[in-house]
């Protein structure tokens, strides 16, 4: 029988959901930092190399790198929040699940996390457009620029879809690790590799 959200939302599932969300956020943060470091060292090496004598490092390159890294770092927050909510309220990870179920729950959690990230992205894009100043009363009132709304939303949707594709294996990995962690504290009958199912 399907369980209601209030039945699912226990303190135990909140703890395992929190661990999974922290794992996802931590892994993505490490990936973002290493990615930015590779890019920064690549730029420095390219500028310092005798093979590229004509190339000079510009402030624009550094600003673009910093902006990309900040954007990638900030995008982790809604994804981690989505993973937490999904594993806590919708598709909890419990010791009784089989490996296949854990993978399916994790894929669902990645989808929910992407939906949360999409909602946050759309709200912030619309907010940015609404905040653009209009000509009325010395630019005192905001005036939405409708011509940039479409491209901005395309950009947000595309970016979230790319992130969803990249983050799904990370969420499945976090789900599996949390499941192994729960199974360690559960009775011997639910040890990983020895699967029991809820009747």
């Amino acid at each position, binding site marked *: 029988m399907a369980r209601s959200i209030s039945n699912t939302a226990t303190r135990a599932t909140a703890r395992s959901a929190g661990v999974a969300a922290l794992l996802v956020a931590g892994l993505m943060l490490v990936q973002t930092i290493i990615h930015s470091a590779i890019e920064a060292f690549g730029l420095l090496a390219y500028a310092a190399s005798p093979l590229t004598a004509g190339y000079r490092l510009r402030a624009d390159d550094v600003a673009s790198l910093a902006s990309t890294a900040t954007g990638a770092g900030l995008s982790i927050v809604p994804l981690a929040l989505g993973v937490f909510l999904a594993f806590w309220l919708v598709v909890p990870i419990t010791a009784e699940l089989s490996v296949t179920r854990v993978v399916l729950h994790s894929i669902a959690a990645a989808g929910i996390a992407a939906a949360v990230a999409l909602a946050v992205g759309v709200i912030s894009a619309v907010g940015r457009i609404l905040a653009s100043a209009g000509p009325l009363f010395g630019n005192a009132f905001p005036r939405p620029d409708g011509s940039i709304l479409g491209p901005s939303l395309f950009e947000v949707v595309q970016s979230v*879809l790319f992130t969803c594709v990249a983050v799904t294996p990370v969420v499945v990995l976090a789900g599996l690790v949390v499941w192994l962690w729960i199974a360690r504290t559960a009775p011997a009958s639910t040890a990983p590799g020895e699967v029991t199912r809820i009747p």
Partner: protein
Amino acid sequence: MAQSLQERATRANARTAGAAAGIVIAVVAVQAILRAIIAVFGAIAYSTTGDGYLQNVFTPVGGLGIEFGTTVLPVAIGVFLAFWLLVPLTADLRVGGVVLRSLAAAGVGAAFTLVFTAVYSGSSLLFGGQSLASALFGTVQSALYTFVGVTPVVLLAGFLAWLWVSKAKPAASAV
């Protein structure tokens, strides 16, 4: 005592390594295809706003072949060889051991990417496609990016293959 390469190269290790490499190739290939589809649909949607160019819509599909040749295939080969001959996944491993072995396998996969990308960049150098500097830096950067991107997938494949091996020997699967 450390096992020799010949002792590790068993049929059982090859089967586990094949399963892990199969998971890696499936996930990385699906990711590459989905990224290309998203890019194509994005380009089509963008071209309707008047800011994009419709003739560039299928560029991501063309890049898919290069990505398969320089990333997907080398990573899968590297992961298979690593899990088969260097760091096999056995039922008596602990979680920490699986993580370390998977990281090593991801490193070998990235090393294979470096070789394959170097061959590709070398051929494009011959035909004047790019400069020596950009080929050199691009190749090293590409291998490093691949390592960062593919590590969670290899960890996932390592865990799934280990759970599969442990299923045959539940008593030995100490977490």
